[in-house]
């Protein structure tokens, strides 16, 4: 089974600061890390490889320093990795990003057909959760999003069964391969990498492809290929107000009901 995992380098948003004037992320304030969801995607791919044989290839788009997340993925057990990096990609929104990644995956598939693609549920900086599904749509394969468990895989009929996390429960679905899976963090616990992987990663030199290496329509890349318009970026307003209601259960309920009905006008619509 040849599995491709999409891995993004992101600023560690748990420590990143927001520039109070421009309201943009001050990227220099945070170290760059592998998107946490993507690390779990790599882990899951490596586990499947161990069980069913095959190979795990990483693909990432970003500046040259993003080779660090490919090395990190090798530590986690991936076999190879490609970074696509070119000025032409700069400023890409999710549409352009998924296009560039799709073209890279197509090129990877030329050498060795791809059976399964993994992506994170979302990137912790952009947070759109669109790139995975975008790639699936472009490749015309099914997408299984927000997967928190791979239930089984049948080699005989080439079908994977997974559990999707929904807002109010779970959904178990099956798909024929090839398909694309986006993962939740709960899908697995990261393994503490063996020393051999660490040494392999220390030696590993990721392949870097530019627009000369993959077939692309330049008008679909970077700012040109990005219809997204950023209207405004702002920090969510701090919640204010609120009051604490104390008393016995009965008293508290009475006060709350009174507020809902008489102060906020619940059921007060005319004719009700």
């Amino acid at each position: 089974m040849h599995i491709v995992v999409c891995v993004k380098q992101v600023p560690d948003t748990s420590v990143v600061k927001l520039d109070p004037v421009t309201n943009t992320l001050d990227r220099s304030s945070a170290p760059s890390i592998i998107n946490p969801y993507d690390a779990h995607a790599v882990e899951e791919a490596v586990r499947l490889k161990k069980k069913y044989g095959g190979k795990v290839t990483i693909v990432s788009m970003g500046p040259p320093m993003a080779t660090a997340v490919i090395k990190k993925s090798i530590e986690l057990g991936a076999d190879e990795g490609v970074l696509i990096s070119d000025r032409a990609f700069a400023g890409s929104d999710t549409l352009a990003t998924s296009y560039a990644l799709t073209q890279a995956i197509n090129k990877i598939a030329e050498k060795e057909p791809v059976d399964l693609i993994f992506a994170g549920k979302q990137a912790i900086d952009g947070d759109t959760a669109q790139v995975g599904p975008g790639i699936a749509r472009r490749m015309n394969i099914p997408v299984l999003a927000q997967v928190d468990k791979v239930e089984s895989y049948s080699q005989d009929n080439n079908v994977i069964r997974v559990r999707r996390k929904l807002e109010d429960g779970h959904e178990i679905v099956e798909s024929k391969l090839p398909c694309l899976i986006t993962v939740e963090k709960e899908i697995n616990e990261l393994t503490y990498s063996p020393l051999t992987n660490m040494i392999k990663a220390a030696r590993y030199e990721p392949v870097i492809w530019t627009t000369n290496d993959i077939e692309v329509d330049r008008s679909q890349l970077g700012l040109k290929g990005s219809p997204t318009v950023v209207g405004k970026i702002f920090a969510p307003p701090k919640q204010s107000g609120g009051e604490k209601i104390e008393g016995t259960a009965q008293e508290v309920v009475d006060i709350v009901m009174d507020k809902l009905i008489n102060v906020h006008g619940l059921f007060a619509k005319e004719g009700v």
Partner: protein
Amino acid sequence: MAEKFDVIIVGAGPAGSAAANVLAKAGLKVIMIERGEYPGAKNVMGGVLYRHQLQEIIPDFLDEAPLQRPIVEQRFWMLDENSAFQFGHKDLSWAKPPHNNFTVFRAQFDQWFAKKAVEQGALLVNETVVTEAIVEDGRVIGVRTDRPDGDIYADIVILADGVNSLLAKQLGFHKELKTSEVALATMQVINLPAEKIEDRFNLEPNQGATIEVFGDSTKGMVGTGFIYTNKDSISIGTGTLLSDLVKNNVRPHELLETFKQHPMVRKLIEGGEPKEYLAHLIPEGGYHSIPKLVGHGVMVVGDAAQLVNGIHREGSNLAMASGKLAAETAIMAKEVNDFSENVLDTYRIKLMESFVGQDLKKYKDATHMMAKQPQYFNEYLPLLNRAASEMFTVDGTSKWDKQKKIIGMVQERGMFKTAIDLYRMWKVMK
């Protein structure tokens, strides 16, 4: 099967990376194992980096090393509660290449220095703790790490794992460090705009100053305070023998806070924004604390070998010099394919002949003497301040009378006792 290397280096601080640079350049198969997220992640230094040893390893470091400011002025303060006796030296030729020394941030410098070794072909594995040396028939043949499949092997293991070298301890090279052999240093990096720094320290852009402070900075205990200028920040810290901290029941961060509040210091850092708080041990035992340095298949370098010259706040340069000498010895051992203690002992001999061994020998009794004789820090420094105050206060008293008064102050302490102390000081410093 676990992989075998020519040399495994434990720790990617200045000592380890110096060794790795030299070994990789000579074409040896070398791997550095570092427990930090990256080299320097948790490493601490004031920190003044000296040019000479670095240049020997990376001749064109000036073009690319992450340096803060070249130092043009070194000041010394003998601090009392409300006064400081000051002296110093400023040399503007140090503002020009090749410079003399520089302030650096270790988190940046160590990363760069290790990267240079990687460019030469060394391997670097981070986030991995070496838990023990693998010993077979009395020879060190590799190391065990905390990772699954975590053993690797090598002809030689270089221990560059810093002041509290657990591995040197495991091998029985040294005992548990005594509290009188290490100083605990705490420091803070305080952000301050470059222009403010240049105004307050009388500097041009891209010039730096250092202030070493004795006396009230450590409340009379053996130790020093320091104030160093970076590009847009000031590093300020205090370091005191652990035994003194314990004896006087002082908390290190309180000492630093008091130092920052001292009237001589406050104005220098006023308005700054604290950015980082760091603490680390410094080996202060000097010559007498140097452990066994070599064994079959193993050499100890840098802080792990307690190679710090506390009197001149030199450590990183001794670390690099020792790393380089150990690497050169390893290259020679590889040529003759003999990794026995006998052959590796070349490292010890070369180290002791070099400035490292010579300087440590010169001051071999200094720290011990000062620890045993607290009067240097808690009596003479105030005395010096009182004497200077007396001399420089213009109040109609003749200079003759002032001299008499000062001699009187010394006599209060006892002429004879003072003479003995001066002689003792001279003896350990000569």
